[in-house]
């Protein structure tokens, strides 16, 4: 784990890759008109754990005295990312149709965007 930039390290890359793989897998189900099955729920659970690990890494760095450029924005993104995998799982179960698979795809495409924004928020001073 990189000491200076916890959200730019291998854990962030792992989050992005895992999320994109799951997005593709859910898209396959959606195209085949299948509802999300156990594999997607397990995937969301794994993604959730990875995201929690990312959050812990960021928390450790902050506790160690490091600071993102904008604390409020950083924490906001982090909270949102942590909420997304469970949200995807709940909605996937509420919508046991192909559209549930689309929802899993959408959620898993948003996570990488948030990780990239998280990286920017950690390392740059300017924010929109």
């Amino acid at each position, binding site marked *: 784990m990189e000491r200076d930039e916890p959200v730019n390290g291998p854990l962030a890359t792992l989050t992005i890759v895992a999320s994109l793989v799951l997005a593709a897998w859910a898209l396959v189900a959606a195209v085949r008109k299948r509802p999300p099955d156990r594999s997607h729920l397990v995937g969301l659970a794994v993604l959730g754990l990875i995201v929690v690990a990312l959050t812990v890494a960021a928390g450790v760095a902050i506790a160690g005295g490091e600071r993102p450029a*904008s604390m*409020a*924005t950083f924490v*906001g993104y982090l909270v*949102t990312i942590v909420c997304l995998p469970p*949200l995807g799982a709940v*909605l996937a179960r*509420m*919508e*046991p*149709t192909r*559209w*549930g698979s*689309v*929802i899993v795809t*959408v*959620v898993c495409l*948003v996570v990488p965007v948030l990780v990239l924004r998280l990286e920017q928020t950690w390392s740059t001073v300017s*924010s*929109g």
Partner: protein
Amino acid sequence: MAEQRTAPERTTNTGPGRVLVVVYLLFAVAATSRAGVQIATKFHEAPLAYLLSALAAVVYIVATVGLARDGAFGRRLAVICCTVELIGVLAVGAASVLAPDAFPHETVWSGFGRGYGYVPLVLPVIGLYWLRRTARPA
């Protein structure tokens, strides 16, 4: 949640509509957080732009609730919000392109939602289409 697979979709919050609700929810969260941070940390820099951000946030929240609740009232809320949203993204988008100096601060709707993959531009159109398609016969 009662599912009716045989009849054509008549609710705004099931099937494809549930995907729409999720996307609206994500935008509600994004716009609210952005407006919150902007207003809390640097409101004095550009009050108009940040109030616009706050307006966008409210519109997304109410649209999400309207679509998720369905029913006559929910639909009316959603139609109003999608319309305001479409006008807002077109007006702010045009203004930010034609007079960039007047809009130096980014909002969700700047550049027709460029910062958000143009989703803010497409979303109200899909929303209005979906509301129309699921409309109950009068």
